[in-house]
């Protein structure tokens, strides 16, 4: 079936671009340095309604991009990365919502990043690219929304690094976000998470071809980047899912080789993942984006979590997954707990899944049920009223029903 005939697909999509700032008037970044001009790649699905109230911003994870749904051409084999949830009649229903997804700055899928040309030198930035943070990413998204004429988002949604951005939206622009869907994330990157990122970066910078980041136009540090991806990929899965998918199966032979060739199926799978990744990702972007992730810590910017989350006004839904060991449930619970302490509207669920951290991309059925209902919940007048009521509410006193005293039946 052609992608154009699939009624549940957003169909053909195209990448769009906007540019903000310039070399003369650059954007100020959190690290104290500046960047300009900044180009942003994004896609949109569905139609913005007349009062511009139906926009949902989708926030991608570490190696994701703006291509969240649909196909670029009829020959395209794979749809966007969250196509299972975005489309007509799907969880993010594009017949109802105007869905936007942009590539983060520092990335390499169309938005300005270390591979982009530095206007000051006419060469790629490489390591002259300034360090970017989750806050900077959100700031650029905010400019994009201003440009699209969207004052308030119906919702923001993202998993992992996308979950960080979703939290940052709620904290930085509490009046511009109606609902937050934060999946497989937490209020900061854990020590374990930083550790994995550090090993990945180590693999890249140890590759002689990395050449202090100046490899553009020559051989790229493929070995290092592939190794980083292989390691990271393990952290996105779970022990149970690896066991189920590969066990100790051998890829080619039916007996052990007693050699160092690739022989287990899981080895071959990881190598394949590494190979696929180097075709689409820039090693320097990987360094920058993992660093942005390492730096994320709600408390550092906004104080203790309870105080930090006192500012949010959005309705929250946090979802964690039983087998996710990169962002275990306890980390989602920290966010939820801070919201509860502040009396905020929050729903929390830990979905049973063997898919590890990647579950937020894979558990389509349960996610569809949750997301669809959560998004409509915030539409209801009732909900708006309830949120408004929270501040000035009257004292409720229990009064026993008037017929409070009765005799026992049967005249006892």
């Amino acid at each position, binding site marked *: 079936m052609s992608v154009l005939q699939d009624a549940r697909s957003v169909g053909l999509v195209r990448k769009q671009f906007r540019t903000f700032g310039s070399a003369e008037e650059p954007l100020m970044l959190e690290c104290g340095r500046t960047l300009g001009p900044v180009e942003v790649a994004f896609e949109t699905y569905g139609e913005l309604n007349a009062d511009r109230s139906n926009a949902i911003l989708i926030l991608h994870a570490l190696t994701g991009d703006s291509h969240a749904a649909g196909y670029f051409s009829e020959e395209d084999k794979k749809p966007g990365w969250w196509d299972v949830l975005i489309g007509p009649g799907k969880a993010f229903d594009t017949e109802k919502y105007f869905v936007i997804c942009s590539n983060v700055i520092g990335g390499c899928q169309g938005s300005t990043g270390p591979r982009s040309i530095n206007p000051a030198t006419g060469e790629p930035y490489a390591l002259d690219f300034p360090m970017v943070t989750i806050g900077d990413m959100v700031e650029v998204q905010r400019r994009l929304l201003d440009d699209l004429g969207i004052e308030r988002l119906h919702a923001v949604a993202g998993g992992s690094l996308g979950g960080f951005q979703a939290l940052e939206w709620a904290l930085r622009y509490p009046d511009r976000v109606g609902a937050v869907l934060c999946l497989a994330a937490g209020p900061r990157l854990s020590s374990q998470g930083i550790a994995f990122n550090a090993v990945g970066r180590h693999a890249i910078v140890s590759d002689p071809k990395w050449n202090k980041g100046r490899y553009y136009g020559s051989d790229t540090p493929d070995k290092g980047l592939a190794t980083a991806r292989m390691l990271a990929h393990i952290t996105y899965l779970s022990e149970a899912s690896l066991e189920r998918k590969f066990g100790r199966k051998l890829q080619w032979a039916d007996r052990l080789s007693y050699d160092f060739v690739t022989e287990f199926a899981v080895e071959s799978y990881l190598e394949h993942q590494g190979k696929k990744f180097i075709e689409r990702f820039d090693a320097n972007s990987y360094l920058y984006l993992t660093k942005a992730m390492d730096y994320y810590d709600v408390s550092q910017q906004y104080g203790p979590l309870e105080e930090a989350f006192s500012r949010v006004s959005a*309705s929250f*839904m946090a979802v964690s997954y039983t087998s996710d060991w990169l962002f275990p449930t306890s980390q989602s619970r920290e966010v*939820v*707990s801070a919201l*509860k*302490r502040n*009396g905020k*509207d*929050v*729903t*929390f*669920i*830990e*979905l*049973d899944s063997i898919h590890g951290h990647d579950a937020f991309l894979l558990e389509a059925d*349960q996610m569809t*049920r*949750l997301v669809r*209902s*959560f998004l*409509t*919940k915030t539409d*209801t007048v*009732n*909900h708006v009223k*309830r949120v408004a*009521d*929270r501040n000035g*509410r*009257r004292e*409720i*006193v*229990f*009064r*026993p*029903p008037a*017929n*409070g*005293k*009765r005799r*026992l*039946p049967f005249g*006892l």
Partner: protein
Amino acid sequence: MSSARPQTESAASRSDYDRILALIPEGARVLDLGCGNGRLLQRLTLEKHVDGCGIELEEENVIRCVEQGLSVYQGDADEGLSEYPDHAFDFVILNQTLQVLGRPREVLHEILRVGRYAVVGFPNFGHWSVRLSLLLRGRMPKVSGLPHEWYETPNVHLCTVLDFVDLCRRDDIVVLHEEYLFGERWKPLSDGGGRANLLARSGLFVISRR
């Protein structure tokens, strides 16, 4: 929590929903602890316009709550309650859940910390049919509302109406209202559990701190 409830959709459980709906004032802030599939909370939201949320342990129930537009927290009574500030709610509902809790006494105190009032409903282990069943059969009672075998019952802390009233007295908890399920009908009563202890299948109490 609620998957373990002896009765979820039976006529009896729906009649206790009606009673709880009658007891909760319009527009109250309500927490339903062990909210199951969210049916009660949804009715409270629609009919009493409460600002409600639930705590529920079982995934499928939590998803059903979300599907009804409810706010719900997946967790058990202990971890779920401690994070709410004092008097975050006007009412906490603990319906057909008390008997499955690991530490019912602590939970009673917690719900009266986070809520100003609590509505507590539970099957009465003092009902004559329970007593008779044990007396005549000499085996752990299996009666209407308590259908489980001893080796697989979720009900680890069953009590009688008098037991509950005693605990309230001991712990300075005031019973503001009580009603009982006689046969198929709920009747408000204020006899401190005395005769109802023998005749009621279930008790429903509104309690608060002294």
